[in-house]
């Protein structure tokens, strides 16, 4: 009975609106209209209000006009007899509810700034609630929505009847790769507290995000979705219709209502329907089954807990590919961010104290027995709790389609493949790998051969098209490990030399990457040997392998064709491809220029370069740097200017690695144009930066590049580079 729901939602909206009016009046009186308000470190103001109305709330005084909009949106209560149509008014009331709740939350940030663990991915000593994601967290996590590692999120409201059920639901959602956003309270209990009780790690890294204790924090989930559409979908603030439909079509989110559904919950559920996010309840509330605003049903109720996740996924219309890996612990991207802390370690390998090396090599077909996993040396049961061991992982791959070039591609997967196992932590690669196996995993029966099982199963699932067989050897015997280390190192050297020798000139095929078109429909990456993907995740070889694996997939070969402009890096074939694949939004694209037809970005670029016109140079900033940059914009504002597949001359998204590639900003004079970057980024690439500088005839280039410790404004940059006699001073003017 939709009428009951609509009536309750409208009542709930009235209650929340009235509460907000009161709090607003108090805050206005206490702080005055000019007091600044907002969620921490975001360029999106109060994101739902900003996305839907285009109004950026900066001060308390700005809230008035939005409250007036709420007042107009919330209809009178539904009549008992001969009622006027109520669905649309209830949806409007739901929207007004979110506006009001954002205002409530903004006031809460002002009044009790420590209520939430601001800027933290994890719970802190002082708070069990994470509140609104700042833009750094948002972008980092948003990328997973874009590339599909997280298809969406479940917004859980309330609590399960007991902690065990809560943990089961959360685990099932994690196994389906979904983020879990939690708020609200049922019968004095909250699901995030229930999870904590059973020892489940919560926080952004494990995708179990406790936003807050009340229903009002549902706005942090919806606000996240609004920001995805603005940041990656290129949807302008105020373009409410496109934002909502974007989320309906692309963000696979839903609400799980656990417990007694109050009027306020109904109001929030009605609001979520605007985004195409349905509600699935465990109580026998009325249902709304006819389709149209959501992809399928709008409200489905009375679902038993053991079926509720499966049901929700189906109602939302989501297809999840769950990796089946024959190991005794859960497996999936949601477990990638989980940590194994010191006191939880059963066995640790690498990390500086012991050797840990991973090597994937080609073998002949007859040398490989597919699926065979050998452990050479002591296994888990031969170590006691808290031990350290040497470790070598050799994956021997064979197949008619396998090429030596694919070895590093598969090998590089080991990190996240192993890390996705629950209770196993993996960091690094090659000879700097670092693995921790937790007590909990060992309790569940995890053994070293299971690492081999993961490699075998996942190589086949993800890369089955490029090889036929794989066997895995795991060494823990120190002597053997050292032998492997030597052989592997020589192989690494050969590989590096081969890659460094590759240039754009000596290949005829580049690759496209449209992986992000699920979220940024007009963005196309062109990946060439000397321009790795702007997200940092895909180089030319990766794309080539991806194409071999899935010829219909998002990486397609592009015959680069005639070079139209050597300086800018414009190729006939690339232009034609981009025009088509961007759905005619982009006419031509330069691979090496920031000023002329720069390549677009979806929004998940690692860095953004921007011109500093007076300095006659270019700065670049990576997404972990949240402060102001000399161009007068923070990373997140810059991302707003270039994100969503828009071409914006003067700005360029690129990867960190690309900075030291030879064609970087070739049209503008190359690496020597770079006059500023954040200190931490500079340190991260110092060695390569230095080496590339020397190749260009400049000693101490990293030192000549200003950073936030030496310059915060363009004037300071100019002064700094003048003092250091930075090479760009004598270069031709860019404009």
């Amino acid at each position, binding site marked *: *009975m*939709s*009428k009951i729901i*609509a009536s309750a939602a409208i009542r709930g909206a009235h209650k929340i609106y009235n509460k907000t009016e009161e709090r607003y009046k108090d805050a206005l009186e206490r702080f005055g209209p000019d007091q600044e308000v907002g969620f921490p470190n975001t360029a999106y103001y109060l994101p739902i209000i900003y996305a*839907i109305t285009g109004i950026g709330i900066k001060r308390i005084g700005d809230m008035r006009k939005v409250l007036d909009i709420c007042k107009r*949106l919330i209809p009178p209560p*539904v*009549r008992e*007899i*001969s*009622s*006027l*149509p*109520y*669905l*649309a*008014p*209830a*949806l*409007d009331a739901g*929207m007004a509810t979110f506006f009001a709740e954002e205002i409530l939350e903004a006031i809460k940030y002002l009044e009790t700034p420590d209520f939430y663990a601001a800027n933290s991915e994890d719970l802190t000593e002082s708070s069990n609630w994470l509140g609104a994601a700042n833009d750094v967290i948002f972008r980092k996590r948003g990328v997973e929505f874009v590339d*599909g590692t997280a*298809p969406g999120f479940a917004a859980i409201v309330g609590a399960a009847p007991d902690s065990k059920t809560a943990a089961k639901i959360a685990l099932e959602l994690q196994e389906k790769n979904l983020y879990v956003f939690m708020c609200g309270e049922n019968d004095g209990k909250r699901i995030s507290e229930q999870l904590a009780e059973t020892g489940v790690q919560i926080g952004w890294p494990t995708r179990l995000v406790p936003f807050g204790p009340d229903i009002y924090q549902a706005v942090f989930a919806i606000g996240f979705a609004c920001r995805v559409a603005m940041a990656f979908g290129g949807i302008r603030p105020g373009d*409410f*219709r496109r934002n*909502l*439909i974007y989320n309906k*079509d*692309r963000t*696979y989110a839903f609400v799980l209502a656990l417990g007694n559904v109050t009027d306020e919950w109904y109001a929030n559920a009605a609001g979520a329907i*605007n985004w195409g996010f349905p509600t699935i309840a465990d109580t026998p509330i009325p249902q*709304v*089954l*006819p*389709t*149209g*605003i959501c*992809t*399928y049903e*709008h409200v489905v109720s009375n679902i038993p807990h053991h079926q509720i996740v499966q049901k929700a*996924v*189906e109602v939302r*219309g*989501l*297809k*999840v*590919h769950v990796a089946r890996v024959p190991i005794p612990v859960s497996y999936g991207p949601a477990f990638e961010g989980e940590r194994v802390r010191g006191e939880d370690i059963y066995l640790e390998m690498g990390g500086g104290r012991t050797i840990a090396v991973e090597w994937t090599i080609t073998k002949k077909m007859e040398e490989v027995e597919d699926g065979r996993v050998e452990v050479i040396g002591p296994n888990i049961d031969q170590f006691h709790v808290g031990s350290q061991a040497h470790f070598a992982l050799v994956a021997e791959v064979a197949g008619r389609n396998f090429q030596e070039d694919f070895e590093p591609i598969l090998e590089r997967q080991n990190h996240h493949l192993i890390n996705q196992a629950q209770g196993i932590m993996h960091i690094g690669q090659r000879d700097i790998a670092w693995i921790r196996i937790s007590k909990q995993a060992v309790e569940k029966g995890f053994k070293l051969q299971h690492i081999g099982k993961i490699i075998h199963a996942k190589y086949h699932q993800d890369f089955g098209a490029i090889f036929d067989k794989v066997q895995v050897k795991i060494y823990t015997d120190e002597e053997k490990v050292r032998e492997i280390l030597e052989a592997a190192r020589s192989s690494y050297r050969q590989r590096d030399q081969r890659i460094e020798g590759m240039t754009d000139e000596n290949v005829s095929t580049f690759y496209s990457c*449209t*992986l992000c*078109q*699920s979220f940024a*429909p007009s963005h196309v990456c062109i990946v060439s040997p000397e321009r790795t993907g702007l997200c940092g995740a895909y180089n030319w070889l990766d794309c080539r392998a991806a194409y071999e694996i899935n010829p219909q*997939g*998002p990486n397609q070969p592009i015959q680069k064709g005639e070079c139209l402009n050597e300086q800018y890096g414009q190729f006939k074939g690339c232009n034609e491809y981009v025009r088509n694949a961007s*759905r005619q939004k982009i006419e031509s694209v330069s691979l090496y220029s920031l000023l002329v037809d720069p390549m677009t970005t979806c929004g998940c670029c690692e860095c953004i370069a921007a011109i500093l016109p007076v300095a006659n140079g270019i700065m670049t900033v990576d997404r972990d740097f949240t402060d102001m940059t000399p161009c007068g914009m923070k990373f997140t504002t810059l991302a707003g200017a270039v994100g969503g597949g828009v071409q914006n001359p003067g700005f360029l998204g690129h990867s960190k690695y690309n900075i030291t590639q030879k064609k970087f900003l070739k049209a503008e004079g190359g690496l020597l144009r770079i006059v500023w970057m954040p200190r931490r980024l500079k340190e991260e690439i110092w060695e390569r930066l230095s080496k590339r500088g020397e190749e260009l005839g400049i000693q101490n280039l990293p030192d000549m590049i200003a950073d936030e410790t030496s310059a915060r404004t363009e004037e300071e940059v100019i002064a700094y580079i003048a003092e250091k006699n930075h090479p760009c001073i004598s270069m031709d003017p860019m404009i």
Partner: protein
Amino acid sequence: MTDETLKSIDKATTELLEKAKKDEIGTVFSRAEQIKPCPVGLEESCCKICAMGPCRLPRTKKALQKERVGVCGATIDTIVARNFARRVAAGVASHSDHAREVAETFIKTARGESQGFSIKDEIKLMEVALDFGVEIENKEVKEIALDLGGRVLEEFGRQNGELRYVRKAPLKRQEIWKKFGVIPRGIDREVVEIMHRTHMGVDQDYHHILLQTTRCALADGWGGSMISTDLQDIMFGTPVPVLGSINLGVLKDDEVNVIVHGHEPLLPELLVVASKDPEIKALTEKVNAKGVNLAGMCCSANEVLMRHGIPCAGNFLQQELALVTGAVELMTVDVQCEMQGLQSVAECFHTRLITTSDRAKIEGATHIEFHPEHGFDTAKKILKLAIENYPNRRHEVYIPEYSQDIVAGFSHETINYLLGGLFRASYRPLNDNIINGRIRGVAGVVGCNNVRTIHDSGHITMIKELVKNDVLVLTTGCAAMACGKAGLLVPEAASKYAGSGLAEVCETVGIPPVLHMGSCVDNSRILIAATAMVKEGGLGDDIGDLPVAGAAPEWMSEKALAIGQYFVASGVYTVFGTTWPTMGSDRVTEHLFEEYEDMFKGMWAFEPDPVEGAKLMVSHIEKKRKALGIDKSRERVLFDMAMRRAIE
């Protein structure tokens, strides 16, 4: 002796028929008993176009078709087609002349010369202005309105080119019209051309005559009627859902009852405002009445109901009966469907009948002409007359105790809003639920009352049958009022009368299974709604592909024929009841009933039994569902990332 209770399914009507009979007051019902329909006229087998005739060429069992020719040699096909064409032209002229009046008032309003009118819906003004190619940037509302008004008025006298609104139709539909050369040039021109072509000795090929008939009808649906609706919405507000009440029980014993009857909403709008005027209130108190009770009749009622929730007294066949209550102080009439019999009924009581249009007078009635320049003064003058007349009630008042809640106000814009709210407004939920089969299709059931059938019965029987079969019904005019009285226009009707699928959707949205879309000129709203369904996607690319049908089970006026013809020409299968005016010629009938399907994807049908008529509509809807491939249930599609990337 006839049994009055068999003449209508509406109790208020039959009670007052009994009273009329007792009081020996003649009404349309009693006159119908005395006059039988002319059998030759009924099949349109009579030609009186020239003075060599009239040539009566009725069908006889013996006569062969080829022998049925007039003095001039005109075949029965030509004669029937010409008669049909002229009746359609009369209908088109009526709607369009109404539209012209609205357009002229609109221009006066834009100039600030009308009294009491304003531009109420600026958003719609902008939309319509864009349809007409008016530059709206950096221009004042009045300036835009004036520009629009000028362009709209040009549509009537346009000699060449195409009516602007034609471009609102789906592209495929426009191509079909182009192919048969039926895109109207100017509204008046198409009417005039019919009158010319059907003059003695001009167009004498029925195919050719009917093509012009089609072009003329399109000048109504996608011309005059659409202009009326749009400009009325701009001036008086686009209707939104509103709660009202209907039937003669809305008249009040202790109030001054004023009935607005007719079709043009101009004066009624001002009467609504004037009835709240303090001076009027004071006068009312002076005569010891509790207030002025404004009630509507026929399409004037629909207009003020849709926009203000003003109660409806009843539909076409109830107009005289309203006066039989003895409770009506005054009735205003403007144009169309007002029976001359009203005056003789009024004379039996104290009731004053006021004619208000410069186009229409009734002998014996008081004429107070309405002109927008002093519209408000006129409205007040009329109300004063009514109030003064209140003490003159000289008969016992008898008001039947029947009135029914009614939820109306379903404009195209409103339906769009109701299906998704302000932020997600669209026809998607409608299309989705048609595709998934909860709703089988949509039917427009519209039109008049006809005293040759049981009053309201055709409408209600047909509509109940349709909603039972999960067909959502859109209704206008007297059909809508019949539904209101029968309790079909409240949300509660969904669970009572609709099939489970339709009921579920109605319950979700909170709508009745039958949606009141306004007066008979507002049938253009149905065309726009159908176009919106096409544009929303998933149901073909033309109105002719949609699982929809139309009907007028109790039609009587020439306007109904014009409406039917433009629906058919827009691709809608249309079933008429009571009688059919081309029965004189098998070939003309076959052309309209069958060959038109190949040409226009819409065709006529005639079925006097409303249940059978509904069945024809449902089977047509099923045929369209099959053609669309939505006749079978579909598997749920689950989306992965690759499918998401493929989304445009």
